[in-house]
């Protein structure tokens, strides 16, 4: 067993190597590894978050779509009801208008008939008076015989 100064040299080399390793080798490597670990963890977390967000927005879209569809259905129903109502109204109005026109026309006809009847009556009365005066060769005094004429006219 030959122990000599080589031992001291090795001890010194040992400390020198550790110091160099500690100063220039270990920190950059371990820091890079830790940083990468963090980045990977962050990336995984982000991916998870994105997935969650995607699922959430999908659900949101689903809800929106369903609502929109329901709203559209509702609007169509409403429009249909409104259209029916408008048509019904129009029908009713037309019917009423027709009836009104009919009534007016009827009234007018009645009036016209009455007027014609009156005219006819007067005409007949006149003719009767003229005829009678011709027959009697005398003039019938309108004033004297007005009551009789009135009766006559009314009877016609």
């Amino acid at each position, binding site marked *: 067993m030959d122990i000599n100064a080589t031992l001291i040299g090795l001890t010194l080399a040992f400390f020198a*190597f550790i110091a160099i390793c*500690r100063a220039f080798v270990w920190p950059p490597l371990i820091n890079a590894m830790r940083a990468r670990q963090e980045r990977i963890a962050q990336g995984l977390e982000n991916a998870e978050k994105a997935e969650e967000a995607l699922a959430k927005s999908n659900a949101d879209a689903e809800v929106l779509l369903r609502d929109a569809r329901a709203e559209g259905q509702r609007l169509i129903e409403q429009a249909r009801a409104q259209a029916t109502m408008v048509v019904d109204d129009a029908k009713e109005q037309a019917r009423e208008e027709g009836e009104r026109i009919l009534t007016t026309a009827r009234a007018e006809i009645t009036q016209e008939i009455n007027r014609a009847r009156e005219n006819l009556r007067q005409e007949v009365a006149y003719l009767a008076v003229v005829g009678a005066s011709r027959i009697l060769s005398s003039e019938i005094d309108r004033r004297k015989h007005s009551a009789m004429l009135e009766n006559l006219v009314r009877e016609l």
Partner: protein
Amino acid sequence: MAEKGEAQTPTEYIAHHLTNLKFGRLPDGSWGFASSAEEAAQMGFWSVHVDSLAWAVGLGLVFLLLFWLAARRATAGLPGMFQSAIEAIVEFVDTTSKDIFPHKSPWVAPMGLTILLWVFLMNLMDLVPVDWVPWAFTKIGVDYMKIVPTTDINVTLGVAVGVFLMVIYYSFKRKGPGGFLAELAFHPFPKFAAPVNFILESVTLLAKPLSLALRLFGNLYAGEMIFMLIALLYSAGIALALMGGVLQIMWALFHILVIVLQAFIFMVLSTVYIAQAYEVPEDDGH
């Protein structure tokens, strides 16, 4: 030496392969490389195994360079193949050291990484066939060249002493001199037996670096020795040479496991020892 190489006995061959290139004070008083085992043995403490030191430092620098290259371009983005491989090792060391050492320290994990990779690379030299590099060095006039630093007790003990100094430092830092002494003196037996305790605990403390150093040294030295014995078969006839080839491959395959395992054990035990030094008796509920 090269001409003499042919006539070596097995003992000489192994002795030659187990001799370091040693620089120190020669018997005549001048400084230089030992040219024989006898000269090397007389050099005393103030001498250096140049080969062990150079390979150890060189391999440490290889480790630092490799990891520094990865660290320089390390980004949090998509890593390339090289960066992924380096990061896998770093992650492994980080996890292991966090499991063993639950406190916050900017030094322990880098220490673990340094030990793991450095010891691994030094052990890895064991897989280079035992004769190649020494043979190449004899061609350029260097007679001795041991390329596996961890088969040199100085290397393993040197690293273990480094760990030991860290243990002492953290013990003082966390417990204070009094606390550290109390831990040494009052531990297995009650306080009246303080001297006995102190001796026992000191042995325990010193056993840590020694066991670290000797475990690694023993494993690698034995492994290297077996590679040499196998290499001896190559000069013992065709049948034995073929057997040697098979044995070498098998031993090398097995040794891949050993070198990784020993590097890992060295790292884990160092971390354990420092974790023990960090443990303050009062805060049991950490």
